[in-house]
């Protein structure tokens, strides 16, 4: 990792006296894929708004590529999908995309090619000559994502990118992010923790305007204890917990929600716990849906602390 692209120190922001962010500090490096999570009203959109330059200067230090957010030097370098922002209904999508591309420094000819390219990326190239108000909610969202891809932004801030999208388009957006992520830094705010678990290497957790950076270890390696998360078909809870508990090396078994079990075990005693668990399921004629190493992001962040 080289020079940080975002340096945020003791950032605070309030709306008419109500603190939205309090003393937030973090540093991000180029190429990182970062998830921003937290409950409603935690300050996620405020933080993304500050990074994008949508909100007036806060107290504390916030520097992107060595500049204040919203600086002219960041034009084309930083891009964003703002929450609930809509395009101008007076112009076609193509006209607006060409205009945005021109503002980012592209020539008239390049701007047309670029507008078609980004619309094609979200499978909406046919909407080039359409007005924004003719689009459905999901299509408008995809168009808004497409505008964030214009040019070659080095940092893309996405606020709830897949909310309201159908599974096929969610997958498409995910693959666009994965494809660009080696060269582009992403900060993705989302409530879809499964999505973030798949995509992100780093998580920033905001709660009541306060930030923490949980040290996530996807599979729970290099720790004294490891976890297996198991999604089961309906089965007798007490019986399942009791049988798993009897397996060699198991420290604790819990059922945080219906048909979900977390098995905590000591890998020094039993390294192949997944096989033991599957054997136990077969022996008892139970059915399972999914078995995964480690805890889910939801468990890591919001229940029982870190591993």
């Amino acid at each position, binding site marked *: 990792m080289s020079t940080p692209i975002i340096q945020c120190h003791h950032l605070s922001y309030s709306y008419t006296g109500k603190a939205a962010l309090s003393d937030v500090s973090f540093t991000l490096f180029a190429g990182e894929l970062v998830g921003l999570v937290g409950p409603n009203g935690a300050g996620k959109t405020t933080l993304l*708004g500050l990074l*994008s*330059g*949508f*909100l*007036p200067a806060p107290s504390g230090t916030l520097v992107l590529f060595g500049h204040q957010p*919203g*600086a*002219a030097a960041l*034009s*084309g370098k*930083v*891009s*964003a999908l*703002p929450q*609930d*922002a*809509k*395009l*101008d209904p*007076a*112009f076609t999508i193509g*006209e*607006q995309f060409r*205009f*945005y591309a*021109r*503002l*980012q*420094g592209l020539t008239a000819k390049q701007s047309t090619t670029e507008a078609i390219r980004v619309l094609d990326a979200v499978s909406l190239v046919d909407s080039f000559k359409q007005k924004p108000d003719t689009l459905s909610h999901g299509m408008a969202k995809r168009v808004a994502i497409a*505008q964030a891809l214009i040019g070659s932004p080095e940092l893309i801030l996405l606020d709830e990118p897949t909310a309201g999208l159908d599974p096929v388009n969610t997958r498409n957006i995910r693959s666009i992010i994965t494809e660009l992520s080696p060269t582009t830094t992403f900060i993705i705010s989302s409530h879809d923790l499964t999505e973030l678990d798949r995509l992100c290497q780093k998580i920033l957790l905001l709660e009541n305007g306060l930030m923490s950076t949980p040290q996530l270890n996807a599979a729970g390696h290099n720790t004294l204890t490891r976890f297996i998360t198991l999604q089961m078909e309906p089965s007798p809870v007490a019986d399942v917990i009791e049988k798993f508990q009897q397996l060699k090396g198991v420290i604790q078994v819990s059922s945080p929600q219906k048909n979900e079990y977390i098995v905590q075990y000591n890998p020094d005693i039993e390294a192949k716990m997944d096989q033991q668990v599957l054997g136990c399921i077969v022996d008892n004629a139970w059915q399972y849906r999914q078995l995964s190493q480690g805890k889910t992001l939801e468990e890591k962040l919001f229940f029982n602390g870190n591993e």
Partner: protein
Amino acid sequence: MSPGFLRHFLLICQFELTRLFFTRKGLLYLITFTFVWCFILFYPLRYTADILAQEKNVAAGGSLLDFMGWGSLLHWHIPTLAVYWHFALIIFPILTIFTSADQTCSDRERGTLRFLGLRASRNVLFFGRFAGTMLSHALLVVITLLSTVAVTVYQDATLFASAFNSAAAIMVNLLIVLLPFTAMMAVLSTTVKSARQATIWAILIWSFLAGIISLLSVYLPALGHLEVLIPGYQMATLSQLSQWQAIQLAYIPLLQSVVLLSLGCWIMHRKKL
């Protein structure tokens, strides 16, 4: 001024002109404006100009226009342009209030300003929109003036050179007059949520500010000078001046514009996009 600023500024101006000529709303406005202008040109303007031409033959001080306080109309070489000047001083500022009200407000409410803010600075957005709106006004002023000159020259071809000189004087003075009106609407647009709100606020500010200043100046006459803050304050005097004489009062709208644009820029930096 960085090259980036100038480039963005010109692009935003150009886009605002596109809004006037190539969007449904803009075209509807242009068509309505053309119909209204044709009516004004062929009826009130032409007939008033005819009356004015007859009044010119009346002895100085004895004219009906002198009696009504419009004697200054007789100082113009071309009656049609004299009437145009008086019409324009009323029509264009009113039109400006309505057509300049939505410089940034609906884009802010919709979130469109966020897409633009990612690519251009707040300064360039504010000044670019203002300049684009002024350019639209300038085009309408030029079109109306050219049509008036065309009617004049059609009636008397010898007036061609004189008509162009007067038209140039009117154009420059009229655009200077419209500057603070457009700047005022730019400021209001940064603070309110819709064009309608901006228009209502403009009317309220103009009437209340004028009323309050008049009331206060009764008790403290020095406060009467505050009237200089109101855009259009010089209009009554301006209508008495003809052609290039009107430039004497240009400092008032120019100063008002500088103050209003600075205020608008300050607000723009403190508002969320």
